[in-house]
């Protein structure tokens, strides 16, 4: 579905996407993960033929993104990062408008647009002007328009950005449903759990470079193998000798006291939370809560790229 070779984009000498090689297979839900400014949107804009690459090639749905760009556009659906609409038009007429580009006959355009908006839960709103829509509703319209041509490949740039948990959940359900219908999905995100829940394969990009492409399980193992984890403890009566004792534990990498509690930075290879709890409780402290944070995206990068990446 997607095959890139040395895909590169320079903006006035600044390399936003640096020689990336990616392969997305039919039926994948591919997660494209990276922090802000990593080059996700730039990559997506190249894959969707909006931006022409500085160098390198890519084929999408079996067509070259440069020489066969129209064919590519015909077969993909794009939900841009921050979609905007003609504010004075209704969602229904906007969808019908976009449907025209694909040669869909008039009566079918209307039927299909209404159907998609109905599925998106916008049935009651579809004849209202976009300017009355909330952010979440606009996101739904953006997803609906990406489906108007029954794309083979759906490319979503941060589909759940700015959505509330329920909205995000709905979107994920929708995406799973589309996968089940045989659609290939390429989505970008900087939220690790979201990608973990949805995607079978993940590519990680940082500073314009691909740092890893793998299945979720493999990645998770690698992260756990090399990452670190925060253990945040709240409670009363925690004293300096207790902390000294914890510091002596194997795998403790740092202790950061905060007003609300104490953060222990631990090597994720060791299961240190019970050990810390034991030391504090036997020392006479009253432990109220122990919170184990998931590895952050930053942790992943650190673990995947090594410390030299920190500079």
């Amino acid at each position, binding site marked *: 579905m997607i095959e890139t070779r040395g895909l590169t984009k320079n903006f006035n000498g600044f390399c936003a996407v640096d020689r990336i090689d990616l392969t997305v297979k039919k039926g994948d839900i591919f997660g494209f993960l990276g922090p802000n400014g990593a080059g996700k949107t730039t990559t997506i804009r190249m894959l969707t033929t909006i931006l022409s690459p500085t160098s390198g090639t890519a084929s999408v749905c079996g067509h070259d993104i440069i020489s066969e760009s129209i064919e590519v556009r*015909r077969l993909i659906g794009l939900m841009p990062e921050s979609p905007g609409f003609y504010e004075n038009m209704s969602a229904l007429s906007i969808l019908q408008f976009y449907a025209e*580009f694909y040669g869909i006959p008039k009566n079918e355009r209307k039927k299909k647009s209404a159907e998609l908006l109905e599925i998106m839960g916008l049935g009651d709103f579809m004849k209202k002007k976009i300017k009355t829509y909330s952010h*979440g509703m606009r996101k739904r319209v953006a997803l609906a328009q990406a489906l108007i041509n*029954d794309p083979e490949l759906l490319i979503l740039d941060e589909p759940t950005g700015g959505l509330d948990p329920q909205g995000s959940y709905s*979107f994920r359900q929708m995406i799973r449903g589309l996968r089940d219908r045989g659609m290939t999905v390429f989505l970008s995100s900087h939220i690790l759990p979201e990608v973990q829940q949805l995607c079978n394969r993940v590519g990680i990009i940082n500073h314009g470079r691909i740092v890893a492409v793998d299945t979720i399980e493999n990645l998770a193992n690698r992260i756990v193998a090399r990452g670190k984890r925060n253990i945040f403890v709240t409670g009363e009566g925690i004293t300096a000798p207790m902390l000294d004792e914890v510091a002596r534990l194997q795998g403790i990498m740092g202790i950061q006291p905060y007003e609300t509690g104490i953060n222990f930075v631990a090597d994720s290879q060791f299961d240190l939370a019970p050990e810390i709890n034991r030391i504090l409780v036997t020392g006479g402290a009253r432990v109220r809560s122990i919170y184990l944070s998931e590895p952050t995206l930053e942790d992943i990068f650190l673990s995947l790229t090594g410390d030299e990446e920190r500079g």
Partner: protein
Amino acid sequence: MVEEDITEEITRSGISEPIKEIPGQEDVMQPKRYPIKSYLGPLSIAKREFTANMKSVRMVVLMLLFVLAVLGGAYGISGLSTSTTSLPEVEVLAWAVLEDDDGMGYPDDLLVLITDGSGTPRPNVKVEYVDYEEDEDDVFFEGNSNSNGAVVVNNITYAMLGTYSIRVTYEGEEIDRARTSYALELSPKPAYVLAHVLDLDDDNVEDDVLVMVTDGDGIPIADVEVSLSASNYHNNGTTDAKGTVTFRNLMAGEGDPFMGFSPKKYDVEITHSGSISTNTLYIYQDDESMTSLFEFEGPDEIIYFVASVFIMMLGPIIAISLSFDSITKEKLQRSMDFLLSRPMGRRGIIVGKFLGILSAIALPVTAINLLAVVVISSVTNKSPTGSLVAGFLVYTVVFIAIYILLQQIFSTLAKTTGTAILSGIAIWLIFNMFWSLISIAAGAAMGYQLGSDAWIKMNNQIGLMNPSGSYQLALAYLLPVEGEVSILGVPGWLPPVVMAVWLVVMFLLATEIFVRKADS
């Protein structure tokens, strides 16, 4: 699944319904695809652009302005023009002091001929010989023109000659149009030649000569040979039963009909009953016909005026106002990516937008222009020249199209909507206002006098280079001025060609720039 537990706890807010399960999977596996034709994208963009513009407040405001200027202008000027041309079609064609027939020692009779603008005698027009006084005018003579249009005032005293003058009243209105005449006494029988310069063929140029030969009572004399000659002109004719002979278009090819001629001397030679007399005739345009262009003699001139003043100013403003944000808005509201990812060439986006905006403007503008033509011809009660009307309608649309494309280029290049509109207004100012400064400066550099023929030619040639100038010139050539029009300094075919070149070049530039800059 943990995720579902979380969502159940969260109260639904904002949207009434959640996203639904996707129905039936079977039809999905073979999605219907239709052939993509290259016109589909541009056409749907054009349609959307057209409707959006038609519904916009901007359009309403602009068209109100346009109606005010064009229809209001057309109506107002037509009214103005009829109020002058509806003045009685009467001229005091000539008046001549007659011979001394009663032995007073000086010529003391006055022959006055009353005709219409084409030299046909007007009977029953009141003629007075009057001394205008502050309280009460002193009327020495009062009478009506006879069937030959002639009135003879007899026995004027010597003292009257300086202070008394002719007053003609026709249909209750006083006509102050007594013109210089050329009277010539012929022998053997008392006869008078009254020659006058008129616009007999109605081409807005007073370069036709009417020669009337009458006796002392204004009775026409037929079969008199009249010849008219100048350095590069010679013609002759014989008077008809009305005593008249005409010479037309003496000034063809000389000077700018809009700017006036320099006076020219003609020799008039009359052969009557074997005797030959000669006199000198000067032909020049008097002040009235000098300003004939602004006197709006007919519907053609009014259409030309409305186009070259009102539309030349407003047309670009309408084009700029409706297209300055056509690209920037798409970028700023972030709907551009939706268009760029549709199965169509990038050119199609700008072409579609151009066609949409153009049709949205062309439709009401052409309707209003047509209405203006109707108003003009019904108020002046004359029908305008067909080719001028056609040119007026077509060139106006082309003119506006050029400015839309120009503005679209700025809209593509500009980062903000403000820059886009400012650039458009700057171009408008340059083409419509500052451009004439170039010819003024160039004229000064070349040593031409402002308003001289040489300067006018150069001014036209420089004006031709910009869309507004070529629009104006293209229409000027459709004005039915007879004779040579190469006077304007550019051949007649050139202005429309220049407009077409502007249109094509701007189109190519706009599409090319858009293809390169759309994604930035």
